[in-house]
């Protein structure tokens, strides 16, 4: 189905002749569907064509549900006409990370152990999308069980960065971010346990938001670190992220940590007004290890916000270097417990040869899990074992309490924290996995946000010398998504659209790469 890009038949005739349907943001596309300029089927077909053309080279998807998406498109079209679906995202196609359950559609967590798993129910976030008239295109690639920062630990092969195919898209929501950046999907769902939405969004030049813990139901999200996991939106801009979050956020009795929040009108924060907003930049984030170009990008955003009337200053957040060790103890401990359910009995992979029940468990798990997942299960089992529990697990939870306190102190003085999303831009494929500890260190600016349960948004700023995107992160206090949305939106108004020219070049690369592969 690989077709020449120029003849893909998705060119959008009205207005800008170069504009393709797939270039539109989710809200722009939603508006055109509402105004009957575009049918849902046309919108879905445009995405499917783009996937067929680009994904061979990109590897953003594990499963593409072409038939299901087209059938659903016609159903949603009828629903729009009958008034059943009248939201801003009705009819807009979406890609869903493959650790978020979709009824009847394979959900693998990019792991051999779930290679054939078909959920019998959908995640609450997915149901919320469907109630708003979303059409699911397919499931996106990820680091196995969301453990990794490059999408290279996927059992089904890596995803590549659409800006440069020799580079990783980041992770673990690398497939979702690459798919949005390459215009395969107008928007996507990701999950963020230690930065898995914000870091790949930054590497791929898209916008990604991790909500306050408890805002989006975790029901149907395959658990990794339950006390840290959150589902969030990945899109082309801040407005889309706010609109998507408004749809997926809900109080859900099926998630015991779900929070009954009153105000979920995130789009009301989309105002170009940061006058008097107090913005703090942690000076301990700007030291050793931070790439100069990334530091410059943070300062660029600071300047823009300052010009618009915000008060920006540096401060000491403290405890920064303790976040990663605390995180890896807590996340691994929770993972070792959560992943105990994969035993070759109820679903997924079962080893062929075994002797007795215990041997079957052990063999199925050893053959079904990849290296990084086994590493974290082993570490997690160790820190939870008797004799080490206090020294490692409880120590990490005490550190988490101190980290939370240092953020509490910061938010007494500031409305928003401005920070890098990652110390560098996207590394090349194969550079990270040889040294796991080094890979973990790349999560230094995102991880503490999960430990403290805070919301964070990653927004693209510019590209580096090599042409790779640089994103920065805006962090808010718990339940203060609106403040980071407003700050990010105000910055975005000054920056302008972040996509077309660079992506045009990338499209050519994708097409030629797809031809080589195909």
């Amino acid at each position, binding site marked *: 189905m690989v077709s020449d890009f120029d003849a893909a038949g998705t060119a959008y005739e009205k207005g800008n002749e170069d504009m393709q349907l797939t270039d539109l943001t989710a809200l722009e596309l939603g508006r055109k569907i509402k105004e009957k300029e575009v049918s849902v089927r046309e919108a879905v077909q445009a995405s499917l064509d783009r996937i067929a053309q680009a994904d061979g080279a990109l590897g953003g998807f594990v499963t593409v549900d072409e038939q299901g998406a087209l059938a659903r498109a016609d159903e949603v079209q009828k629903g729009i006409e009958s008034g059943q679906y009248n939201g801003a995202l009705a009819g807009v196609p979406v890609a869903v990370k493959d650790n978020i359950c979709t009824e009847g559609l394979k959900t693998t967590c990019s792991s051999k152990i779930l290679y*054939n*798993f*078909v959920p*019998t129910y959908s995640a609450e976030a997915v149901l919320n999308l469907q109630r708003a008239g979303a059409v699911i295109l397919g499931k996106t690639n990820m680091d196995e069980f969301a453990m990794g920062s490059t999408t290279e630990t996927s059992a089904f092969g890596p995803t590549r960065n659409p800006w440069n195919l020799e580079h990783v898209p980041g992770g673990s929501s690398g497939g979702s971010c690459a798919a949005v950046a390459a215009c395969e999907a107008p928007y996507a769902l990701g999950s963020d346990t230690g930065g898995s939405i914000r870091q790949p969004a930054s590497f791929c030049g898209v916008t990604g938001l991790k909500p306050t*813990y408890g805002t989006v139901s975790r029901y149907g999200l395959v658990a990794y670190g339950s*006390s840290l996991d959150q589902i969030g939106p990945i899109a082309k801009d801040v407005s889309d992220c706010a609109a998507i979050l408004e749809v997926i956020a809900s109080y859900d*009795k099926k998630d*015991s*940590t779900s929070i009954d929040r009153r105000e979920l009108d995130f789009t009301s924060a989309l105002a170009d007004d940061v006058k008097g907003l107090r913005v703090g930049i942690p000076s301990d984030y700007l030291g050793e290890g931070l790439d100069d170009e990334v530091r410059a990008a943070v300062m660029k955003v600071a300047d823009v916000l300052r010009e618009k009337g915000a008060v920006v200053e540096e401060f000491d957040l403290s405890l920064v270097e*303790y976040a*990663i*060790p605390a995180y*890896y*103890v807590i996340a691994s401990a929770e993972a*070792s417990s959560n992943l*105990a359910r994969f*035993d*070759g*009995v*109820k*679903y*997924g*992979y*079962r080893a062929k040869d*075994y002797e*007795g*029940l*215990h*041997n*079957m*468990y*052990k063999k199925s*798990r*050893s053959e079904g*899990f990849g290296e990084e997942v*086994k*590493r974290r*299960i*082993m*570490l*997690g*089992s*160790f*820190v939870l*074992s008797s004799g080490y529990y206090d020294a*490692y697990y*409880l*120590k*990490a*939870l*005490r*550190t*988490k*309490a*101190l980290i*939370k306190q240092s953020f509490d102190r910061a938010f007494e003085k500031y409305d928003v924290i401005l920070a890098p999303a990652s110390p560098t831009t996207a590394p090349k494929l194969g550079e990270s996995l040889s040294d*796991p*500890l080094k890979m973990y260190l790349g999560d230094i600016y995102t991880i503490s946000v999960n430990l403290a*349960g805070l919301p964070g948004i990653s927004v693209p700023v510019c590209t580096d010398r090599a042409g790779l995107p640089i994103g920065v992160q805006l962090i808010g206090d*718990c339940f203060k998504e609106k403040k980071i949305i407003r700050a990010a939106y105000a910055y975005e108004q000054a920056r302008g659209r972040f996509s077309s020219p660079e992506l045009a070049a990338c499209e050519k690369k994708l097409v030629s790469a797809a031809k080589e592969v195909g």
Partner: protein
Amino acid sequence: MANIISDETIEYVGILAKLELSDEEKEQAKHDIGRMLDYVDKLNELDTSGVEPLSHVFPVNNVFREDVVTNEDEREKILANAPAEKDGAFKVPKTVE
């Protein structure tokens, strides 16, 4: 490397984790866990005496509800995912001698 993981420890953790590692994987795991623990030992620089462990950021309370069935019979759908089934149940190797 300050943390030396013994063969016995790796065997024991393997039992807890229900993982069967090859000799090569065991050596690798000893090295990896030791190295991670060296790094995690950094936490000992912090005085956390008197600090309560924080497992959830927000207070979490038990949520009670009446014990009523809300879902339908999904046996067929659920068993469709089973690696092996027999007479409407998951089939496993003999568990009792």
